[in-house]
């Protein structure tokens, strides 16, 4: 049987889990706790097709949030809404709805980003590696590249970047002092 991401199965016997069943698999008796919510029981009536180009779903299919008359095929990887094949925009490995695709096109970092690079943490990782000055310089480059770009969506702190900057500058200063001392013959 082809993998169906919508199919809810019994964890033990993989039989279809009955709609509304809260505790027990009818096929193997496996027990679990299931909380059913009204969304599972709302009417899913999809209107009859209006044209040959339409690809309506059955009465049990989810519908596209932009086209209620069309069957949804995937969730938008950015906002989580359900979209049909007509609306779905394939952006590399991601499936986006048109508004999220537009947001991604108009801004490098939309309001609903699907990923963010943590430049501060990368720089911090580099700045604590005891291979100065190359890693200290690399940390400064990473900080420069990430300058002005938003950090974590949920923890927008700049603390790692600041610590990385201080450590990298300390390393470069220490290296410069060592070079100067060596040049002046202090180690002879």
């Amino acid at each position, binding site marked *: 049987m082809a993998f169906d*991401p*919508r*199919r*809810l199965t019994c*964890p033990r016997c993989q039989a279809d*889990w*009955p*709609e*509304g*069943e*809260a*505790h027990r698999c009818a096929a193997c008796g*496996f*027990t*679990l*706790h*299931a*909380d*059913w*919510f*009204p*969304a*599972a*029981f*709302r*009417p899913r009536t999809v209107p009859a097709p209006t044209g040959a180009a339409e690809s309506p779903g059955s009465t049990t299919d*989810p519908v596209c*949030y*932009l086209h209620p008359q069309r069957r*949804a*095929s*995937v*969730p938008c*990887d*950015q*906002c*989580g*809404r*359900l979209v049909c094949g007509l609306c779905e925009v394939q952006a590399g490995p991601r499936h986006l709805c048109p*508004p*999220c695709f537009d*947001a991604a096109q108009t801004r490098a970092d*939309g*309001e*609903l*980003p*699907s*990923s*963010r*690079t*943590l430049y501060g*943490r*990368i720089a911090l*990782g580099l700045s604590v590696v005891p291979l100065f000055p190359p890693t200290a310089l690399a940390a400064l480059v990473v900080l420069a590249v990430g300058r002005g770009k938003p950090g*974590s*969506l*949920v923890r927008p702190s700049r603390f790692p970047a600041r610590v990385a900057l201080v450590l990298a500058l300390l390393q470069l200063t220490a290296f410069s002092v060592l070079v100067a001392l060596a040049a002046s013959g202090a180690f002879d």
Partner: protein
Amino acid sequence: MDPEAHSHPQQYEPLRARARMRPLPRWGTAALALVLGPLAFLVRGSRQELWDGGDHLLIIEDNGYAERYRRVRYQEVEVLQHWPTSDYLQAAVLLALGAVGYLALAGWLYQTTDGDSLAIGPAAIFGVSLVLALASHLVRGPTTRVRLRTRVQVIELPVLGRRRLADRVLPRLRARISSAQEDLAGAATAPPQAPTGTT
């Protein structure tokens, strides 16, 4: 279409659920620890976190240098399932057997070679690391699995892999989902076997 979702940044609240994703099941990691000792516990995946975004659940996968975000709208969650797993017992048995075995080996080598064997140290380190892993595993409590279904997908939440954590987070999720679907409750068709809401 709700233009709000595309025009305003979201404020997120932590659900205080954070855990490492596991490239191996718990018993697999325990079995690997029998061979690799403490090195086995370095085999870890990215960290997963759950945050409440008001109208959606934000699932974050954090590999240390980048975060990936997935959003599940509360309004579209149809069912939330959770069940206990046997991982807890299997991993505990394997870790206990390994700890006893390595510590016994270290003791036996110490006795028979008067402490001259080079293998005593590694065996003791393996044994002690397995004891520590066992203690940590027991303290964190029984294991569970949680998944939710929307209209188009079934999503596993490996972050809620411990029952204690799941018991703390799931009521908040249920409340959020129920609140988001309040307007659907009246219009929804009655379920065939169980009432809507919690078990």
